[in-house]
């Protein structure tokens, strides 16, 4: 087998000419600095090279063993929203996707201008003063927010509502452990699914911050003004983890006193992709901007008097401050932030509101229909956005496998993260679901429980 040449332009003749100029006898001669005992003597045990048509056929075959065709009622942070065709067409402009981080602003104004507009849109959605250029996902953005609050307050206690996505809580714990964070979880009201503000105020004593998700993991809308007040009662900060689509209809975090707003931006123009890439967003009050992790794009002028954009406040970052940086983040999710920017530009404020309203209407239609099934009931009484928990009588895992055979991806089982919620599952509805799909689901639930 020889090496495939698709992406390797050097011909044999050119290789010889180059070796001659270098003064080396062979390519192996260029590797003589590797000690003999460390040279790999065997051929790598990998599958043999495929031609492009063979590769495409293989990919199609493997992707065919997935059930991506199933009608999606799963959420939990990742939602099946519609992405306009123009988004991907713009993302495929390879001047965007084949560029590196914009270190040379003179030839990176495309990326820099887009990120500056992204930062503005995140500020507009959240009501916060400043947003950064993106984080990996909502989970790591939550963890980084906790770290910001710990350095701002000099405290190590991090309070998080138990109704916050268990995956985000897990990452906050992973990141917090080596820093000696004490992570305290606040229970939810078993009836409403909302967080108890009195318990939260108690836990907030001596805390660096309180982290609360809204709508919470159960889809329930929290009383964020009350939680914010309780969170601030002993000098701690308040971090709101929010769904950006919900912000078309739900109050902006800054208006109820959040110091930091983070969230999962996948819903804005990004596909589900089996959970990645995602888009963590982060916005904060201007007092906290110098504690922010990651890239920030700022406006300035060039030597020709033109408006231009550049990476700024870099003395927070690892390539300047090394071990004293605010975070170790370097590459972020730039292209996903670009997708969000294009998406929001297409939707505009009215389009985003339409998506939010349609998702809510459909979720409320489905919730009502399922709760009218004999063996199911709505688990929580609190108000909800586009997601809700349902309590049944049987094994959720088995139910989901049955539904999958009927072409439906059922709600997420809740009992592994919440043992007290046995036989409960979490259902999400977006604007893409139709009445017909929901009625079919309900008729299946009538006979499966």
């Amino acid at each position: 087998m020889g090496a495939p040449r698709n992406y390797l332009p050097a011909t044999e003749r050119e290789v010889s000419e180059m070796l001659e100029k270098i003064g080396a006898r062979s390519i192996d001669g260029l590797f003589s600095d590797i000690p003999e005992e460390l040279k790999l003597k065997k051929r790598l045990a990998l599958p043999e090279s495929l031609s492009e048509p063979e590769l495409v056929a293989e990919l199609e075959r493997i992707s065919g063993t997935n059930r991506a065709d199933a009608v999606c009622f799963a959420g939990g942070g990742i939602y099946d929203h519609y992405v306009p065709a123009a988004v991907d067409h713009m993302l495929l402009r390879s001047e965007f996707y084949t560029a590196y981080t914009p270190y040379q602003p003179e030839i990176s104004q495309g990326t820099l201008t887009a990120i500056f507009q992204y930062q503005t849109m995140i500020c507009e959605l959240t009501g916060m003063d400043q947003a950064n250029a993106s984080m990996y996902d909502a989970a790591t953005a939550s963890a980084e927010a906790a770290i910001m609050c710990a350095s701002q307050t000099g405290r190590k206690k991090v309070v998080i509502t138990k109704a916050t996505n268990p995956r985000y809580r897990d990452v906050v714990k992973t990141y917090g452990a080596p820093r000696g964070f004490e992570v305290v979880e606040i229970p939810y009201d078993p009836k409403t699914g909302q967080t108890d503000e009195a318990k939260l105020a108690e836990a907030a004593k001596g805390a660096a911050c309180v982290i609360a998700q809204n709508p919470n993991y159960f889809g329930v809308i929290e009383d964020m003004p009350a939680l914010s007040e309780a969170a601030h009662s002993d000098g701690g900060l308040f971090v709101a983890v929010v769904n950006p689509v919900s912000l078309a209809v739900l109050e902006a975090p800054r208006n109820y006193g959040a110091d930091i707003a983070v969230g999962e931006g996948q819903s804005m123009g990004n596909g589900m992709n089996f959970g990645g890439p995602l888009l963590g967003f982060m916005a904060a009050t201007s007092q906290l901007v110098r504690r922010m992790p990651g890239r920030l794009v700022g406006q300035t002028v060039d030597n020709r008097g033109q408006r231009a954009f550049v990476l700024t406040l870099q003395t927070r970052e690892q390539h300047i401050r090394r071990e004293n940086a605010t975070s170790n983040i370097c590459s972020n999710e730039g292209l996903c932030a670009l997708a969000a920017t294009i998406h929001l530009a297409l939707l505009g404020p009215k389009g985003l509101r339409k998506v939010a309203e349609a998702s809510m209407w459909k979720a409320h239609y489905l919730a009502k229909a399922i709760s009218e099934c004999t063996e199911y009931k709505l688990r929580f009484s609190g108000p909800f956005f586009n997601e809700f928990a349902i309590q049944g009588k049987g094994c959720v895992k088995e139910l989901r496998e049955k539904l999958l055979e009927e072409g439906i991806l059922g709600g997420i089982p809740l009992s592994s993260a919440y043992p007290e919620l046995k036989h409960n599952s979490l259902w999400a509805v977006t604007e893409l679901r139709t009445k017909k799909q929901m009625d079919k689901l309900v008729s299946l639930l009538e006979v499966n429980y």
Partner: protein
Amino acid sequence: MKKLMPLLFEMSSAGRTGFSLPASDVPELAIESMVPDSMIRKAAPGLPELSEVDVVRHFTNLSLLNHGVDTGFYPLGSCTMKYNPKVNENAARLPGFARMHPEMPEKGAQGSLRIIHDMDVWLSEICGMDRFTLQPVAGAHGELTGMFIIRAYHLKRGDALRDKILAPDSSHGTNPASAAAAGMTVVQVASDARGNVDIEDLKAKVGPDTAGLMLTNPNTLGLFDEHIKQITEIVHKAGGLVYYDGANANAIMGKSRPGDMGFDVVHINLHKTFSTPHGGGGPGSGPVGVKKALEPFLPCPLVVKDGETYRWDYDRPDSIGHVHSFNGNFAVVLKAWSYIRTMGPDGLRAASELAVLNANYIMEALKGDFELGYDRTCKHEFVLSGSKQKKESGVRTLDMAKRLLDYGYHAPTVYFPLIVEEAIMIEPTETESKETLDEFICAMKRIAKEAKENPENLHTAPHTTPVGRLDETLAARKPILRWKKEDNA
């Protein structure tokens, strides 16, 4: 203030939209009937109102202000800006992969689970490790995961006092930052006259408090550390572990393996070595591989294969936990899968060989015009110094980098590594042809000549780019981080 292009907010015209939805097929409830008053948003977010054509023209024109690998040569050292194959982009867009929700039951996710499992096996083979997690989504995220693993390993053995991470003075900034983020204190180790780790300094600095050493090999000077085996042995003898920063793995595929060199934990940048695009700053992917003894500490969950079926393994009591919401950047992993499947074992080896050939070819051609810190065979990249030009004509590396933009190239990495004065770090990658390299060499020689004859033209470069040099001091002193009408009067 002149404006190169209006921003979306400046183009907005109330009433326009670029989006449509079908009429509702369910009852349209009033928001007030679903949401308590205190949680209803009173003022709509100030997003722009535009039609599809406005948006498409804006972003198309913005893209033209960017330089990407598809535009031209991108010799950015330590970033491995190789060509990003187009079929891999198609792979990630196949609906059977792209439309997968991560909470799909295993039965309906066999294809995606198989991709993750294949990559675990293949990366283990390429790196000489035993097990890989695909969860970390960037190089620095991989480093952080690796540091968590090293910390968990020592704690499990009751070795709680090991909190020092050694890193050479030539290391990437993310190395000390990741170690610090994992609660470690960073101890710097010197480099010797040949650009290797200074063995005597290393010996003096390892001890009972050493958690580990972080190393890039070939290092950021583009040099293979000739004493690597001795280095890993010194650290192991002191009870520490050795971490491999895979940023430079493009030099060694099929030629040498970190696992065989004695590394215990490795991260690989799929967005460098395995051809996935950088996306203007991500999404990347930074899988982490470990030796057997560290497997229990890997993030949860991993994919296992039982007979012909793939499933998640959550039963991992010693795991450091999750480092990402879901399964890492799956779409990026899939593009790397396609790349490995296309290249095969011979293609990957040839890629590393040609990357090294290309770097040595440029280095040999330019070493008469620029100072070369370490005159020995390099691997996939090398570091020149602009100190001669600075001394002779007051032209700095920054000036020469900016002048390169006028020639249609992206600049090399500059002022890094920190141990080389006026550093210019050049990494051509294997996907560039001899003509491209010859033209680049020619441009570099002309710039060296221009430094002598017309230094002013370099101080004011670039001249032909959409914008000139930026006032970065102003940007930092009076930060404007979002658009407001009043800042753009």
